[in-house]
């Protein structure tokens, strides 16, 4: 299959430090503006598929809103896994405690994978992405 650049968004649509989710040919992608340089990565987190545009972008580092796994948007590398949560000393109803235990047990087996990146280019004020 031949790869081609697809016009995604106008460069002015994302302020520096911002992100925007787009869908191109069935691919869910987020475009990040890192101080005027545009990067595109897959929209879904490499841990549990959360939508990454709802997270935070700081420089080239993208943090997932769900469990705070972090990724480098320049190459998609997973830099850290999920941050463990804690409910403190709160006493939960037994069914909820059991449910959370079950979730925790399942999550132990979830790997945090690196995310896919896409080549971008800026042309005539448009961010284009190679698919």
């Amino acid at each position: 299959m031949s790869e081609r650049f697809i016009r995604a968004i106008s460069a002015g649509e994302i302020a520096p430090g911002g992100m925007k989710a787009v869908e191109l040919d069935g691919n869910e992608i987020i475009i990040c503006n890192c101080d005027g340089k545009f990067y595109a990565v897959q929209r879904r987190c490499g841990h549990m598929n959360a939508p990454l545009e709802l997270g935070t972008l700081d420089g080239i580092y993208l943090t997932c809103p769900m469990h705070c796994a972090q990724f480098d948007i320049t190459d998609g590398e997973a830099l850290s896994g999920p941050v463990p949560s804690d409910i403190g000393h709160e006493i939960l109803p037994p069914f909820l405690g059991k449910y959370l235990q079950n979730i925790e047990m399942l999550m132990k087996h979830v790997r945090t994978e690196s995310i896919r990146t896409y080549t971008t280019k800026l042309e005539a004020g448009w961010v284009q992405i190679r698919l």
Partner: protein
Amino acid sequence: MSQHVINIESRKKSLHYFFEKVVGPLGFKFTPDKEMMNFLLAQEVILEGRHGIPFCPCQPLRNDRARDMQIVCPCIPFHRKHFDDIKRCWCGLFVHKDVFDPDKLPQLPPKEVNNE
């Protein structure tokens, strides 16, 4: 903890980026001893891989969430008074901005400076 193979060098770089933003406004900087800085950051990456959180590499974990959270790097805000007296944090990853030779700093226990 979920399985994740961490590239220590990449994670060190990102921790450096995030920590610098936190410690700068607190009047601290990374130690000028680069070898020590790299070693300590690498230990934090290993601890993060094990526990999900980059704890201070020189402090023991006590299995007490509230206390353990006080040694998450950079732990400066929790132990500020002692760190200000000794011009560095306990493990030495951060020093006051006016420190250029951390080896010359005195090592004063908290009791001696009487503030913790």
